């Protein structure tokens, strides 16, 4: 009775999948590696960037949309940030603010195209994805923006902000980027749960016509959703740059699919109107552990891919509504 009711809660089902993954880890522990905190710490660091994108993605998906442009926004932000800080030696904090603003701006433009001009999110963001990847290459002149300056063929100093973001805290036990991830999750969870905007996200995704009739500013809601997605992508971009110690225009190709995977494996439905951050976090950990387990066991490429596919299906089967 109550057990059945329990199972009918998406969060519980998301947890099921995650626990399943952990069990798998204890089986394939690569002679104990899985039981060292270091492994979990690294897993968290690896999943952080995708997780941060997934936060924005969740919001967009809840409004019934999808945002394929995130990976390119990420790349452009990484390049832009590196250009500003490494080559132009701009004040790092100023640079961060600028990059975040840019990300939000780009997002809101796609948002307007979706909300105001009612173009399918998939097309708009696909176009944005291509366009911004181009922009990243244009900005960087096709080269990685690292401490090496082609003009003078010299190496400049790497700004401290890079080590700062790539560092660890809490007795070296948790990466800053992971902390940033958790902050992003918390912020978006708060947004969804406690604010009016959050309600509007759900309403718009649940039934846009009804939402409009109820006086929900549907258009503004959509714009904000995509703007936030862009913002989070920019945050991710800065983290990525800091971790790679360079701005690589080619970075994070295909992350958008990973982010979407995280969202849906958490249990949020792409048809919109449902879902939440808890699910996304669970999804992120599930994927993160999957990758980590396969990696510490040095599984070969082909088998790695095949296992990933199979395990994802199992995870989802495990958590589907009875």
């Amino acid at each position, binding site marked *: 009775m109550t057990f059945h009711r329990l199972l009918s809660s998406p969060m519980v089902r998301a947890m099921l999948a995650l626990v399943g993954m952990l069990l798998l880890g204890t089986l394939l522990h690569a002679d104990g590696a899985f039981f060292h905190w270091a492994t979990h710490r690294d897993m968290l660091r*690896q999943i952080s960037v995708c997780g941060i994108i997934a936060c924005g993605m969740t919001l967009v998906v809840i409004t019934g949309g999808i945002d394929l442009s995130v990976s390119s926004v990420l790349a452009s932000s990484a390049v832009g940030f590196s250009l500003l800080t490494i080559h132009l030696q701009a004040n790092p904090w100023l640079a961060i603010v600028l990059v975040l603003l840019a990300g939000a701006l780009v997002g809101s433009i796609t948002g307007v195209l979706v909300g105001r001009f009612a173009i399918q999110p998939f097309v708009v963001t696909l176009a944005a994805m291509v366009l911004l990847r181009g922009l990243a290459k244009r900005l960087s002149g096709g080269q990685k923006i690292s401490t090496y300056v082609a003009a003078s063929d010299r190496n400049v100093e790497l700004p401290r902000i890079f080590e700062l973001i*790539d560092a660890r805290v809490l007795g070296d036990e948790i990466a800053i980027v992971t902390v940033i991830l958790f902050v992003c999750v918390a912020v978006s969870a708060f947004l969804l749960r406690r604010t009016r905007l959050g309600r509007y996200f759900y309403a718009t995704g649940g039934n846009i016509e009804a939402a409009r009739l109820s006086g929900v500013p549907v258009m503004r809601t959509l714009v904000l959703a995509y703007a936030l997605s862009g913002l989070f992508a920019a945050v991710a971009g800065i983290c990525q740059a800091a*971790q790679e110690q360079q701005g690589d225009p080619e970075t994070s190709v295909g992350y958008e699919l990973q982010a979407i995977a995280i969202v849906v494996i958490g249990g949020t439905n792409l048809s919109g109107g449902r879902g939440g951050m808890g699910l996304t976090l669970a999804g992120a950990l599930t994927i993160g552990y999957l990758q980590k387990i396969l*990696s510490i066991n040095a599984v070969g490429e082909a088998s790695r891919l095949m296992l990933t596919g199979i395990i994802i299906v199992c995870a989802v089967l495990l958590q589907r509504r009875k």
Partner: protein
Amino acid sequence: ENKSPAPSGGSTTLAAYRPTTTMNAKKHKGTPEDPFVIGMSQCNLGEPWRAQMNDDVRKAAEKQPQLKVVFKDAQNDSMVQRSQFEEFVDQGVDVILISPKESAPLTEPVAKAHRAGIPVIVLSLALLKDEYTTFIGADNVKIGQEAGKWVAETLAGKGTVVELKGLMTSVPAQERHRGFLEGLDLRNHPDIKVVFDADMQWLEPNARREMESALATNPRIDVVYAHNDPGAHGAYLAAKQVGREKQMKFVGIDALPQEGISYVKDGILSVTFQYPTGGTEAIATALRVLAGESVPKKITLPTRLFAANTIAGGGTAVQ
């Protein structure tokens, strides 16, 4: 990436000579007003090494007022590259430079163009037949061997090695792997062990992820050999995170100025082996072809080793 060795079935020597192109095939006078047009089809620009090759071509060509180069990039898709090649033929350029993504899909189109008397210079990846004007490229197996030897020497016959491979479905990665094992010669160095290897698909973030796993599963690592410099760099960052970067040496390949070389300068990599792009040689050869001179069927480019102390001197040649 898709850098590759000399053609497997090419029995051509420097002496071997075949008249390449007849003058009447030329569409332009080759004066600054009406310069020769050279079509350059690059398989993709996603990889810095290939961007570098285009730059080298561009730089070399800029010195020649009678040359004009048209660049096309095939977005890493053999089919796209094939139709771009066909476009060059249709639009009647004087020489075609092609750095193929795949051998098989381009063998036929190139052969056709070559039979039609259009000079084709193949860069970095050999084709299945040798119906082209000339092939310019370096030898990945050789480079792998050099890396292997260097590691064996530095370890003095004893130690643990991590190998971070490039995309293993690509020829260059396979050859850099094969060469490395040959150079390492484990039979005669029983105490050298490759304790961890993974396919990082030429990508730095993947390399870092795999290296973290390697570190988690291996208390002692002496050398990290990555199939490209970004891979080595990613591995270094992973080791640095756990404060073990000093305990091991990092070896990379490619030695692009903004990557390998600068990493060596920063003391991140111990050594990197240059994988020359052949861009400059390509233009030189093109000029000779346009002048109607004979060119060798195959030009194999030498590799150079860059270490902290040899960078200033432009590295040391390895023979």
